[in-house]
């Protein structure tokens, strides 16, 4: 066997190892209902803010505690706790991507980047936002 083949094999072996370990650490997208069944496991949920419940955030008391409620497209709801500051413009979010784990009925997020807010205003190439603006103050 030529040396280049040996090297190639080594690289392939490493690549497979990396891939397996990478796959092992992946989470999956879940709905609130399926996340509840995978209690304690890190999952990703895409949901909307449940506007019927208040967002609890009092930075004067504790800037590291945010509590809010989400609802997904199937109509399931859950309470979310996040231990960092409230993301800006959260109230206007069209969609929230959350990474964390279900703990009983509470979805806990332990990493700062565990919340990704999708705002219509973040990048203004969104026609829906512009349309809304045009039909205001008629």
């Amino acid at each position: 066997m030529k040396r280049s083949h040996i090297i190639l094999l080594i690289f392939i072996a490493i690549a497979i190892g990396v891939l397996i370990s990478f796959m092992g650490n992946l989470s999956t997208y879940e709905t609130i209902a399926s996340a509840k069944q995978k209690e304690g496991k890190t999952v990703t949920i895409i949901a909307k803010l449940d506007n019927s419940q208040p967002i609890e955030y009092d930075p004067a008391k504790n800037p590291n505690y945010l509590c809010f409620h989400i609802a997904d497209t199937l109509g399931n709801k859950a309470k979310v706790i996040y231990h960092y500051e409230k993301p800006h413009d959260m109230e206007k979010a069209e969609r929230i991507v959350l990474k964390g784990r279900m703990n009983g009925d509470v979805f806990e997020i332990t990493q700062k980047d565990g919340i990704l807010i999708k705002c219509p205003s973040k990048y203004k190439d969104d026609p829906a936002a512009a349309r809304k603006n045009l039909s205001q103050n008629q």
Partner: protein
Amino acid sequence: MDYIGEHLLPGQLGHFFVVLSLVASLVAFVSNFKSSQAIDPNLQWQWKKLARIAFGIDVLAVFSVFATVYYIVYHHRFEYNFAWEHSNLALSPKFLLACIWEAQEGSFLLWTMWHCVLGIILIFRAGKWEAPVMTIMSFVQICLATMILGIYFFGAKVGNSPFLLVRHLFTDAPIFQRADYLSIPQMQDGQGLNALLQNYWMVIHPPVLFLGFASTIVPFAYAFAGLWKKDYSGWTRVALPWTLFSACVLGTGIMMGAAWAYESLSFGGYWAWDPVENASLVPWLVLVAGLHTQVIFNATGHSLRATYLFLLLGFILILYSTFLTRSGVLGDTSVHAFVDSGMNIQLMLFIFVFLIPAAIVYISRYKSIPHIDKEENTYSREFWMFIGSLVIFLSSIFVIIATSLPVINKITGTKWSTGDDSEFAYNRIEIFIAIILGLLTGITQYLKYKQTSKEYFFKKIWLPALISVIIASLISIFGKIQYDKYGGGFLIAIHLGLFCAIFSVVANAGYIWAGLKGKWKAAGASIAHVGFGLMLVGILISSSKKQVLSYNTTGININFDPSAKQNPLENITLLKNVQTDMGRYWATYVSNDSLNESGTTTYFKIHMQDKRSKEEFNLYPFLIKATKGQQGFAFNPSKHHYWDRDIFSYISAVDNGENDTTSFKSHPVSVHDTVFYSKGYMILDKIEANPNNSRYHFTSQDTAIVANIRIISRDSLQYNAMPALFIKNNQSNFITDTVFTQNLVLGIGSLLPDHKIELRVKESSDMIPFVALKVYEFPHINILWLGTLIMIIGFVMSIVRRIRTRLTVA
């Protein structure tokens, strides 16, 4: 209907220029192709002449399009959607430029403008390679022109025109029933530029990054032309400066983005493995791999096949990253991707029209690409350089696979997502890449091409290796790198990585004397490697020693959040004018002022005092009010620079209460005394020495007193407050307590005779203003920026040298 006040001429002109650029680049493409295929030199020249004229017209047309767009934005013609959506009256000229490339159409325009510049240089410099290379160049120009074409072609929309009127885009909006719709308030001003983007980085970062993007076409075009014309090795020397240029500019652009994220966005760092960042990094990595194999081939004749693969892939990956960032597919994984603009099919086609031909010529000509059967010697530079390139390439594949999860999910129907710590998912792999590359960049310099005697190699390498071991050990032992968040294995990897990075710096710097005998002209590569090594050192130290300084250590509010103990409390609340304990510092929120003329920016003055050294400084994190049509703020950071570290802070929450002018009032009180305030009264129940309760954990070694105060408000509700005073390191420390519902801040001022204490009471007319602040320390971040600069300098030196040698060869 005749609309009043519209200026339609610029739009018509602009649209004409877009179409002209499309037609001109089509003609340039066909003529260049004909010229490349012609055998008769006369015919070749005829076609080439036509191609040059056509490309010249294309250049003029593209720049006219840009001028027209700028005209529309500069004169605030809000009937045009481009001006209405991206600009407003308040923007200064430099931000008018920024708002052009903030838009998708504008950034395509920027890209195609750079192609024009590069194309002109190629026409002058490419010699016999002009026709085939310009064929590919013109073909990209066709594709980019369609991106801003904005016409319907058999029912399918092709591109987004920057000259669309608002009423064309929103035909059903009721305001367009009126002929004088331009006089309606919301048509009088545009939406403006996102507050986050109103920053000088937004003016300079995109042009540099897009020059980097645009320049990758040149190595691609040469490689493609080499395969196409079956002149497999004739281009590798003349194209080397282009590969270097591309790697240099793209790298600069990426690092500018990193500097921007660090300097003025509250991302809390310079790199987050965000998909959009990765999408630019991956082509750069592949290009750097290609650069190295190209150098190997020029020196030894090895690695030509790999060179083709890497250079072709570099540009394809640029197209792929364009698709990723602009198609909206990253919507759920990136904080800064564009949203879907309805051009996904076109963007996908853009990839395939290059991928398919490139794959076909590469695969069909693969066997004919010259290669050397004999394997490289283990003690040869080319062998280890090739391994290094392969490692870079593999790491780029890993990054792009991880970044492409949303695409993979779309295709296969799976639901994969990165775990909740997505940065670590990359870091734990990339740390090993850093280790290998650090080692290889150092070792390879001391190996000669073809064959190196072991004696020579070990004679030269032992000194840099020894120096690196000493430096790295000193840093490991005294540097206090104790990053145990991910366990001991990762910590060892960090220390190992640090050694390899230092070795890379020392070995490459040493090589300038030991190997090159101080010939600085030839030292470009060594200098670039020194820069790269320094970048690794900077990244490793600043990330592993990055510290949150604003840990909430005050003891306030812990009961509020039962799980707080296991969770980081990265934000600290600072009440205005109340000195707060923040680990090594005392922090005081002093004031907030609006400094710029339009009143959209608010600066917060945070006074910091080092507890030990007494050194004082101020931080000024600020908020920019979002532009019209959006609420909210952009929270921008402020830094205090030291030579060896940055104190980095930003506001994470703010209460914009009234300006508070009240101050503390002192009341001498003894136990059971009563003090009145506007909404009730308070009683000092007892004074405890060194209490150990839910709030405070003092021991008998401490010197502390805590006042237990009961507050009874007019509505007879009771509250408790426990301000404290303790002596530590011969110094008085005060912990105030706040009763927010009563707008009260209580503190102990001092001990008075007769068992009295000075009770300090502050009552604010409104809620006491406060900010929640986050403060980080980035140690030795400057090494990263220094390394980046040195790497760029090394690249530039290499480009200059390779152009010179190319001239002497030619």
